[in-house]
């Protein structure tokens, strides 16, 4: 028995040594590790092409992060807090960026990348904190209003003009159809709430850079009440379908593709998805910018995407920023859009002929991104988002008289440390 145990211990030691040894490449070329969110292989391709373009100055290797944004944040935060030196380049979901930038976990952006001309406004805002750019925009996502042309025609709605939520709700009621929105208890709900509040001219967080004890929320305003009114009506009248309380982006798309589909707010991933799953629907498909809350005020569509940051403890920050510069070139962004369906943050990329061909709504996307309003930028974003999700769910229970107040009280209590989330 003892010999066996010793053998096992020995084997484990060998395995350990082998794993450690495998880490370093031997040809003197510095390896930059790019931590990417899982996608359809596009980021790995860009890594390969930029490695080639570097001509031996550096090599980019990708390493996967978990699929959902919350787990990505958890892994990166934990490792950055432990001063991990292997975090060179990171693909970051915009809402986490203030949280990682504030304690100094991100290396400062060099001057060569500070020029934000030609980058859509929504992406620039989501990449900044405390008035400066802390990450570099890579690709930018936004939600469009997708609609069934037959339904819009039958209702006599002119889709070449901006539409409002009221109009959409009315059409759905009259035609006995359902609207594809994301009412699940998830980040998608915060995205929706934020878009509604911002479209109504308000903001969820009045002073993003305040300390948690002193934060003020902008929900108990006309804008907040208007948002609650829209969500409440869709919920209580069953316009989102019976699956609304658990509907995510995929579910909305499925609802839209069904017989009761009429309108849907969703990200552009639905375009290639619907093309492959249900080509007939493409003939009946139209798109427009996100609906307005108030007919006279332009909408503020949701903004998402990925920005690239460099870890403050990386051993090769200069090289990493050079690599980032290569990655975000308009050609790479256009290629990424065409292959992976993730829209560019660089306006020049939209003019690429392949982009225009594959995505006829490319210009609408660009317009939407320029109008877009990011979610509240604060290191306490997680508390605010989850607090909103808890109090504005399920949609049937949302009403303009109570919900803005309840949610404000709850979120502020959590931020002050008086309540659990």
């Amino acid at each position, binding site marked *: 028995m003892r010999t066996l145990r010793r053998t096992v211990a020995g*084997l484990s030691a060998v395995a350990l040594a082998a794993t450690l040894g495998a880490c370093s490449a031997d040809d003197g070329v510095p390896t930059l590790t790019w931590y990417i969110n899982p*996608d359809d292989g596009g980021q790995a391709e860009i890594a390969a092409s930029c490695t080639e373009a570097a001509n031996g100055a550096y090599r980019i290797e990708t390493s996967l992060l978990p699929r959902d944004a919350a787990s990505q944040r958890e892994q990166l935060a934990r490792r950055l807090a432990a001063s991990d030196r292997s975090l060179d380049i990171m693909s970051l979901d915009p809402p986490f960026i203030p949280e990682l930038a504030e304690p100094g976990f991100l290396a400062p952006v060099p001057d060569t990348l500070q020029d934000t001309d030609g980058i859509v406004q929504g992406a620039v805002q989501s990449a900044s904190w405390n008035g400066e750019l802390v990450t570099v925009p890579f690709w930018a996502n936004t939600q469009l209003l997708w609609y069934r042309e037959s339904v819009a025609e039958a209702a006599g709605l002119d889709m070449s003009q901006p539409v409002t939520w009221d109009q959409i709700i009315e059409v759905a009621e009259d035609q006995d159809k359902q609207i594809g929105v994301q009412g699940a208890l998830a980040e998608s709900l915060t995205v929706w709430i934020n878009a509604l509040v911002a479209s109504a001219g308000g903001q969820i967080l009045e002073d993003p850079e305040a300390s948690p004890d002193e934060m003020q929320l902008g929900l108990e305003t006309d804008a907040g009440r208007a948002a609650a009114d829209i969500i409440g009506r869709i919920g209580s009248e069953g316009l989102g379908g019976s699956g609304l309380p658990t509907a995510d982006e*995929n579910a909305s798309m499925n609802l839209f593709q069904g017989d009761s589909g009429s309108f849907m707010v969703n990200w552009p991933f639905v375009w290639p998805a619907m093309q492959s799953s249900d080509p007939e629907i493409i003939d009946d498909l139209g798109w427009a910018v996100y609906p307005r809350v108030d007919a006279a005020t332009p909408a503020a569509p949701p903004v998402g995407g990925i920005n690239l940051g460099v870890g403050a403890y990386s051993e090769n920050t200069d090289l990493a920023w050079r690599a980032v510069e290569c990655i975000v070139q308009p050609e790479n962004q256009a290629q990424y859009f065409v292959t992976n*369906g993730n829209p560019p943050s660089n306006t020049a990329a939209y003019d690429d002929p392949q982009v225009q061909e594959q995505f006829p709504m490319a210009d609408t996307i660009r317009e939407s991104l320029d109008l877009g309003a990011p979610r509240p930028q604060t290191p306490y974003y997680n508390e605010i988002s989850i607090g909103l999700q808890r109090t504005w769910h399920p949609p049937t229970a949302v009403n303009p008289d109570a919900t803005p107040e309840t949610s404000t009280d709850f979120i502020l209590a959590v931020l002050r440390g008086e309540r659990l989330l």
Partner: protein
Amino acid sequence: MRAMTWPQRIMWLVIIAAVLVWSLFPVFSIAMTSFKTQAGLFSGTLLPEEWTWENYATILAPGGSAQDLFLPALRNSIGISLIATFIAVVLATLCAYAIARLDFPGKRIILTTALAVSVFPIVSIVTPLFNLWRVVGLYDTWLGLIIPYLSLTLPISIWTLAAFFRQIPWELEQAAQVDGATPFEAFRKTVVPLAAPGVFTTAIIAFFIAWNDFVYGISLTSTDAARPVPAALSFFTGASQFEAPTGAISAAAIVVTIPIVIVVVIFQRRIVSGLTQGAVKG
């Protein structure tokens, strides 16, 4: 055994059928899901409307997008779980024997510690352990997972084996010793055969605990050097970030279940024979 009457036989058949359906139906459900196309996932029926092997290709075929995630993870899971189980069973057997047979100070402490350690929420252990492992160099290694798995599997193993050893009469060993055997020989010849079923049961339980772990797997690894299967599942991706990789996960589940079924088929015979022969009769 009395000969079974026909009504009794039929009753047993019905019972076994019910047991089979209860136990295997969800497995059947995942298997069916693994054969569905991406669009067919939302069809609302149990059986696929359109059968496809594409999910299996994704995780197993050389070109598959998840293949370089899944196969290393499978290797990691099997290797780490087996090693952890082996070590846990060996250590637990020694420890349980001591607890059941010998009287020494601190016995209760060991049992209580075993219990306490196994129930402390892993969630709060993970971050300090992560920091410790990074310093020591065990982060993202097999050993870095084996050791925490031991802390998960040892307590239940010790308790189970101790309960088992207690039910084996002390007299058997004493008799063997009186006959001239050393304590170790007495142990080997009398207790080991009777304890075998208990050891196998414990080994199965320990293996499955290690096999199932998710939190340690995802927090103490960062590459496929040590990432086990449950953690790897959360890296699978659909065609876009909004598409859950249901098909791929289901296929992975079935592939991973096959060795389990093999393990179960082999071990269930051992337990059976041991348990039915080894029961102590007057």
